[in-house]
């Protein structure tokens, strides 16, 4: 099959949304979007639609798409998907080659992506294209529930700039969606700093996303400055869920061995699914598909 690759900026957001949703209709965890959400996604995660692609057959049928986020010398491949009827035609491989060629043309040195655990076809495609595993992450949920004990310590609520200031001091790696740049791109970023009576301290940065009728919490990043992360984390989350007692919470990309994980579990978070982060280092400027 002859596959044509077209820059995604030649399509409307609605057309890209419709195509993306069709590629995910039988996905392990179907997560459809609307055009507004895709627009936010493109903005918040620095997706470069000109260097993203839609795959089309020679008879004009769309087959799939892939997007490329670009930040300086680092890129992120996301939203890769092929329509169910067009799988095993080489479309996914062609889209990946296109992303790698576009990244090379931009002088990108390192490319990141994430794949849902147990999505074997995608995982093996990424291995074949030179990606290696760099971390395992959990995507967790928390339903509102009454807090049994009042939170301990003195909480200081942080506005956008103060939350970002904390996050930009974070010493460890964050995946693309939780990186400081992603959080700075969203006006919904807030945070809280906590000091416990014994002097232990830490902070939590998150998004408080407002819908037309309600709001929800997501993108939690936690750091313990001093003390036991499971204890500091538990009190940070207790303050958060006491303050936002009716909010649903979606914590994405929590490192599988994050020392704060016991705090999430103690507060009733449960795992929805796992993701594997993978990276590919560019050794040459120009990528040529093998």
């Amino acid at each position, binding site marked *: 099959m002859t596959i044509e690759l077209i820059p995604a900026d030649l399509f409307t957001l609605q057309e890209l949304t419709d195509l993306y949703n069709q590629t995910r209709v*039988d996905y392990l965890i*179907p997560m459809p979007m609307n055009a507004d959400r895709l627009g936010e996604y493109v903005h918040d995660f620095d997706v470069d639609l000109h260097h993203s692609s839609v795959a089309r057959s020679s008879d004009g049928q769309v087959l799939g798409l892939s997007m490329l986020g670009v930040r300086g010398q680092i890129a992120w491949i996301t939203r890769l998907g092929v329509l169910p009827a067009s799988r095993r035609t080489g479309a996914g491989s062609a889209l990946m080659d296109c992303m790698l060629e576009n990244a090379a043309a931009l002088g990108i040195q390192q490319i990141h992506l994430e794949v849902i655990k147990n999505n074997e076809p995608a995982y093996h495609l990424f291995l074949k294209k030179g990606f290696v595993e760099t971390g395992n992450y959990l995507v967790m*949920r928390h*339903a509102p529930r009454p807090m049994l004990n009042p939170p301990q310590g003195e909480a200081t609520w942080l506005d956008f700039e103060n939350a970002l200031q904390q996050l930009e001091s974070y010493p460890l790696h964050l995946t693309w969606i939780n990186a400081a740049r992603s959080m700075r791109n969203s006006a919904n970023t807030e945070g809280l700093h906590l000091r416990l009576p014994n002097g232990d301290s830490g902070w939590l940065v998150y998004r408080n996303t407002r819908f037309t009728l*309600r709001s*929800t919490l997501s993108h939690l990043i936690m750091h313990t400055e001093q003390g036991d992360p499971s204890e500091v984390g538990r009190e940070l989350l207790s303050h958060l869920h006491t303050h936002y007692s009716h909010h649903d919470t979606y914590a994405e990309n929590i490192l599988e061995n994050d020392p704060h994980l016991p705090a999430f579990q103690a507060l009733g978070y*449960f795992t929805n699914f796992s993701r594997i982060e993978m990276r590919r280092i560019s050794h040459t400027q120009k990528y040529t598909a093998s």
Partner: protein
Amino acid sequence: MARILYIEDIQDNITLVEKIVTSRGHEFLSARNAESGLELAFSSKPDLILLDLGLPDADGQTLSVWLKGDPALSLIPIIVLTAWPEEVVRQTVEAYALNGYLCKPFSLAALVNMIDSVLGTKTI
């Protein structure tokens, strides 16, 4: 007869469930995203909500929190109809205090039994 609201983004699924629900003599309403589903729940006060978890604006878990958080809607039973892995759905139903679930693909009989069970009616 009950009024049943199905919140689901895929039209084929809506059409299929509508046939099943109306064949049992129930009134059927539908919405294709979370915010219109919430508005329709407010305006129609259904007896039962069938809820997909994968919705294009806010997802089904978040919508269930909005529904359960409103005094006018909090007592409406919610059944999850989803293609998500069963263990995740089971935990979701428990954590979000929902009333039941069916994992796709499910049989006509399973849906009828679940609706009847939650509404407290007998299968004919």
